[in-house]
């Protein structure tokens, strides 16, 4: 099966579409301009349109045959109402620093994933335990993209978005079936409340992630995401992104096993860099085929042509 993700704004939606197991997705005709209804079979989901307007929180909800999740707002406080068939209604408070909630959806292991924003640049990730009606994890990230099977979340590790020198994108994977502590393999001791150093590093493998900071990194040493987020394959076994480092761009494919073990392979795609520089390259379309990946590389600098390329899986080299 070929999966064609067309834009970063749709990654989350696409992931959800795959989650509903190939059912036909149709936007509700009466959906207001500021929200999107996604409906399929017995599942109804309402997510935000991606803009940041915390003073106009959109109506966010999720509903399947087992559970109804609804964002509630009262006196400036937000909470998630959990209505599980045959169980008592529960309510989970959303942390104050989440200025806007963008989506709530059920994931694996009777959990739900809430994605929001703490400001225009930083996402908040909250994992809810639907059984107990509690927060099982909470952290900050950039570019969170859930796998179609709702098992994993690829994201960029948090750093303050402004007035901080030498920021670096570090790519992480969160296993939604595991506990908060299990999702902090780089930390020891009491680490489950760390909202920063979360997830399993996926690329590059040799950076000494356990001690590597993601601020104060020399400009020519910093890794930067140069794709419009992460592009999951429909089988949730791999995802793709592009990384710029020292003036070169690599297309990185991360293989994910069910256990959460990851392997990264990469191919240099610097030939796709626009004349203005590799910083302007932005992979915005990915098509998975049986033998490889077709990508489109846009230039973020106006007036430069798009480029595309097909990379055979066999051309991707293991990252040491």
């Amino acid at each position, binding site marked *: 099966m070929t999966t064609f993700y067309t834009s*970063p704004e749709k990654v989350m939606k696409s992931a959800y579409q795959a989650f509903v197991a190939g059912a036909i997705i149709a936007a509700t005709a009466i959906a207001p301009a500021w929200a999107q209804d996604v409906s399929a079979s017995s599942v109804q989901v309402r997510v935000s349109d991606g803009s940041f307007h915390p003073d106009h929180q959109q109506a966010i909800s999720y509903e399947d045959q087992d559970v109804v999740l609804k964002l509630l707002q009262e006196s400036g406080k937000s909470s998630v109402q959990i209505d599980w068939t045959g169980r008592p209604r529960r309510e989970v408070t959303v942390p104050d620093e989440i200025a806007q909630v963008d989506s709530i959806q059920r994931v694996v292991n009777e959990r739900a994933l809430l994605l929001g924003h703490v400001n*225009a640049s930083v996402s908040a990730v909250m994992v809810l335990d639907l059984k107990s009606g509690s927060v099982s994890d909470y952290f900050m990230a950039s570019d969170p993209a859930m796998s179609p099977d709702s098992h994993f979340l690829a994201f960029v590790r948090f750093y303050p978005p402004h007035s901080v020198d030498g920021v670096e994108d570090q790519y992480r994977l969160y296993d939604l079936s595991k506990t908060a502590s299990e999702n902090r393999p780089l930390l020891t001791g009491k680490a489950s409340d760390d909202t920063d150093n979360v997830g399993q590093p996926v690329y590059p493998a040799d950076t000494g992630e356990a001690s590597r900071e993601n601020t104060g990194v020399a400009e020519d040493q910093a890794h930067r995401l140069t794709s419009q987020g992460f592009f999951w394959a429909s089988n949730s076994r791999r995802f793709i992104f592009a990384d710029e480092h020292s003036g070169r761009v690599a297309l990185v494919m991360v293989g994910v096993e069910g256990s959460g073990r990851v392997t990264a392979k990469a191919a240099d795609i610097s030939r796709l860099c626009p004349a203005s520089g590799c910083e302007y390259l932005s992979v915005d379309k990915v098509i998975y085929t049986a033998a490889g990946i077709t990508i489109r590389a846009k230039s973020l600098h106006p*007036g430069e042509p798009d480029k595309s390329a097909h990379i055979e899986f066999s051309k991707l080299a293991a990252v040491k």
Partner: protein
Amino acid sequence: MFGITPAHAAGESIDAVTPDVTYTINPGQYIIFSFKWVCNGGLSGPYNEPVTGTPYMGGQLSPYNGLTATLSPNPGTSNVDTESLTITAANNAVPGTYPIVVDGVGNPAEPCPTYTYPQFPQTLTLVVQGATVTINSADLVGNNITVTTQGGSGTSGTLVLTAHGASNTVTASANNGAAVGPGTYHISLDRPNIPMDTYTTITAQWNWNATNPATTTYTLSPSWVVYGLVRHSQYNTPVESACTPGTETAYVVDSNCTFTQTTLNTNFAKQVYVNGTGQSSSYGILKYIGTACGPLSKFPAGATKKNSFLKVSAVTGSCGTALQPGISEATYPNPKVKRECGDNRVLVTSTNANEAIKSADDYCPDCRKDFNGTDGHIDNYVSSQACSANAVGDLGNFWTANTNHGSH
């Protein structure tokens, strides 16, 4: 093509073509001078003389610069009296001043002592007037392109501007597309509909003549870098006094990396951490500490990167300058790296009005994405006196262009 015949009779043309008299024509016109070369004396007495030779145009043999001079009848093909000189300006004739010289010879069989009218060489001055168009200035912020057209009285035609990008062209006309005469015109562009591209030149075409319009090309320096419709999000410096009550232990760190234990508002500390800076009530501006004071292992017990903040004198962006609320903006790639610090960006509403003029002063890593259906993403610094980002939602989507790209 139409012609002008100077008001003189044959044989009197000497008066009409004296060097101090200038004749003017436009491209697409011709002019006829009546000549009769009358030989005085010689073998046959006074007689009309066939003349041979080629007129010179501005020192060059005819034809030259779209001008052609011919003697008629052509003595080179028929031995008849030469009676006129015709100068034709083609549609593409180059405007200018041309001395015309008829440098001929009489009948060699009957040498002529003197000629009554005119003597050789015969000279006249011709001005090819034509029409010109000039782009004087092009101001995208003021949305004003000033164009001057020059030509003879009665010269008129539509005046069309075209801005040229790498893969797009945009046109605009003076006088709503109706014809205009000589004068100076201020032409505006429908900026919200200018597509994303880098525009390097503007051409003007004044269609005073269907086949020979006046044209000119104006080089935009610096180029206009049009980002198209861009999502403009906003960020602020959280203010401690605006936060709901509640305190926690924190550390304020000076430029010598001396940690001082204190208390800060709990929500404020969180906001400094997630935004990067904050305006405290007691310590001025505080900033995320990052690696400024070494690794965490060098921090005092209890101090973390979430509760330790650097004291700084100003909120600065990646360009190293103090951020100006309502003016500074954060962009991707880092303006410091791309030498775009201080580049001006004009934000234009859907009704073609200026919303703001901003300055690239900071880096926005997130702006590589989250376009939300637009062509780009820019984060704008604002002065909101709030504790968090709740009060600083998106500014909106605006057509945006960089008007001095790379000029710093």
